[in-house]
C-alpha cells in the first residue's frame, strides 16, 4: 500500500519540555490507525503535530503520496463554544469547504453540492435546516464528520470521537467510521477505548509516558506484552 505519512524519530513538546520522544510510525493508504495512551502521554501534542499546528522539536514528519500537509480532515473534541452555537447543520457542513475557497468570498456551486452529497452520505440530509445545538451528541458528531469530509477525502483524524455519547451512539459512530475506512479513507483515531481500538483498527500506536510503547498491526498488539497488560487492566476496570 502507498505510504501517506511517515513519522521518523520525532520528539514533541512545548518550549523545550519534551512530552513524547522517539516516535516512529508509518501510515499507508487505507489504514485505520488507533493512537492509544493515558492522559498526559502526549496524544494531543501528536495530533497538533500531525495537523501541522505545532511543529515537532526534532525528527521528521513527512507527507508522501497523494496527501500533503494540511490535507487532513479533522474531527476535534467539542468545545464549550460549540455546544450552544446557533448555526444550522448545512452552514457547519459547508464551512468544511472553506480551505478550497482561498480568497473567494463565497462558496461556489460545486462546493455547495459537495456539502449536500456528504450530508446524504452520512444520513444527516434530513437535519440540514436544524439547529446544531438541538441535535443529540451522536448527530453532532456526524455533522462534524461531514464537515471534515468536505475538507478532504484522503485522511481523517478523529480526536476521541465517542466521548460523551451513549453506548448505542458510540457503536453507530464506530460502524460509520469503519464504513468510511472501507471506502478507502485513511483513519487516524485517538482514543481511550482499547476494546473498540482492537476491534476496528488495523494498526495501533501506543504511547506511554514520554515514549512509544508499541507500533504495529493490531493482531501483533494483542499478542504483545504492552497490549496484553493494557487489555487486562481495562477488562479489570470494567468488571
Amino acid at each position, binding site marked *: 500500500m502507498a505510504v501517506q505519512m511517515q513519522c521518523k524519530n520525532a520528539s514533541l513538546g512545548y518550549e523545550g519540555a519534551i512530552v513524547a520522544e522517539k516516535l516512529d510510525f508509518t501510515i499507508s493508504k487505507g489504514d485505520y490507525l488507533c493512537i492509544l495512551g493515558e492522559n498526559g502521554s502526549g496524544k494531543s501534542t501528536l495530533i497538533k503535530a500531525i495537523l*501541522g499546528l505545532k511543529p515537532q522539536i526534532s525528527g521528521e514528519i513527512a507527507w508522501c503520496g497523494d496527501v500533503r500537509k494540511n490535507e487532513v480532515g479533522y474531527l476535534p473534541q467539542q468545545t*464549550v*463554544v460549540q455546544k450552544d452555537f446557533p448555526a*444550522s447543520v448545512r*452552514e457547519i457542513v459547508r464551512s468544511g469547504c*472553506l480551505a478550497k475557497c482561498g480568497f473567494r468570498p*463565497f462558496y461556489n456551486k460545486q462546493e455547495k453540492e459537495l456539502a449536500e452529497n456528504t450530508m446524504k452520505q452520512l444520513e444527516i440530509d434530513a437535519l440540514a435546516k436544524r439547529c446544531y445545538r438541538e441535535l443529540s451528541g451522536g448527530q453532532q458528531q456526524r455533522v462534524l464528520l461531514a464537515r471534515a469530509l468536505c*475538507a478532504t477525502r484522503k485522511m481523517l483524524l478523529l480526536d476521541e470521537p465517542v466521548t460523551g455519547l451513549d453506548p448505542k451512539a458510540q457503536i453507530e459512530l464506530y460502524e460509520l467510521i469503519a464504513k468510511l475506512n472501507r471506502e478507502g479513507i485513511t483513519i487516524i483515531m485517538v482514543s481511550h477505548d482499547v476494546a473498540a481500538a482492537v476491534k476496528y483498527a488495523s494498526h495501533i500506536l501506543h504511547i506511554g509516558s514520554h515514549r512509544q510503547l508499541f507500533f504495529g498491526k493490531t493482531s501483533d498488539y494483542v499478542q504483545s506484552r504492552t497490549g496484553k497488560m493494557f487489555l487486562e487492566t481495562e477488562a479489570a476496570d470494567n468488571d
Partner: protein
Amino acid sequence: MIENIGKLQQYFEYPFVRYAFAVGILIALCSSLLGVTLVLKRFSFIGDGLSHVAFGAMSLAATLPVIVKETVITFSRSNALSPQMENLVNHLAQMNNMILVLPVTLLCAILLLRTGQNTKIKGDAAVAMISVGALAIGYLLMNRYPSGSNISGDVCSTLFGSTSILTLKPADVRMCVYMSVVVILTYILFYNKIFSVTFDENFMRATGVKAGAYNLLVAVITAVIIVLAMNLVGSLLISALIIFPALAAMRLFKSFRGVIICSAVISVICAAFGIISSVLFSTPVGSTIVVSDLAVFLLFSLISGVAGKRKA
C-alpha cells in the same frame, strides 16, 4: 400623537438631527454584526474593555495640549511659552482626537484578542486589567490637567455619550459613513471566514486556513466600531450595543445567518426608536437606545420561554 409627528418633522429640518440619525443607525448596524461573533467567542466584555481604552486615549488627546504646556513651562522656568511652542499647543488642541484614539484602541484590541493563546495573563483577566487601567489613567489625566472648567461634565459625557452625537460636524459624519461602509463590506466579503473562525478555529487551522489573520481582522473591526460608537452611546454603554441584539436574536433564531440578520434588524430599529424618543422626550440618547435594546431582549426571552414550554 399628531402633535409628536409634527414635532419630529420640525426637528428633522435641522441637519444635526439628520446627521445624528444617520450616524446612529450605521453604528448600531455595524456593532450588531460583530456582536454575534464576540458573544459566541466569549468576548462579550471586550467591548467594555476596549471602550475604556478609548476613553483613556480620548482623555489623553483632550489633555495633551495642557500637559505639553505645563511641562514646557515647568522646565523652562518662565511663565510664557515660546511662539513655536504656542503654535504646537494650538495645533495639538485642534487635532482630531481620532488620530490618537483609533491607533491606541486598535493596538489594545489586537493585544487582547491574541491573549487567547499561551500568555501568562488569561483572557478575562487581561481585559479587566487593561480596561480599569485605562479608565484610571483617563480620569487621572482629566482631573490633573483639566482642559475645560467642567471636569465632571466632560467625564460624564465621555462615559455616557450625552450630547456629542447632536454636535457632529459634516466631516465627522463623512468619516463615520466611510468607516461603516468599510466595516459592513468587510463583514459581507469575509462572512464565511468569520463564521468559521467563530465556530472552530482549530479546524480552520488544520485545513490550512490562516485563522490568526481572521482573528486579527475581527479585532481590527471591533476596535473601529468601538471608536465610532463612543460618540453615540459613550464608553460605558457600548457593550450593550454589541451584546443585546446578538443575545436577543440568539434566543429565537437557529441558523447563524438568521441570527446575524435578526440582530442587525433589532439593533437598527432600537437605535432609530431610541434617537426619536430621545428627541421627543429629551432623554439621553445613549441610555434610551440601550434601554430599548434591553426591552427587546426581555421580550425575545419571554417568547422563547413560552415557545419552549409549549414544545415540552
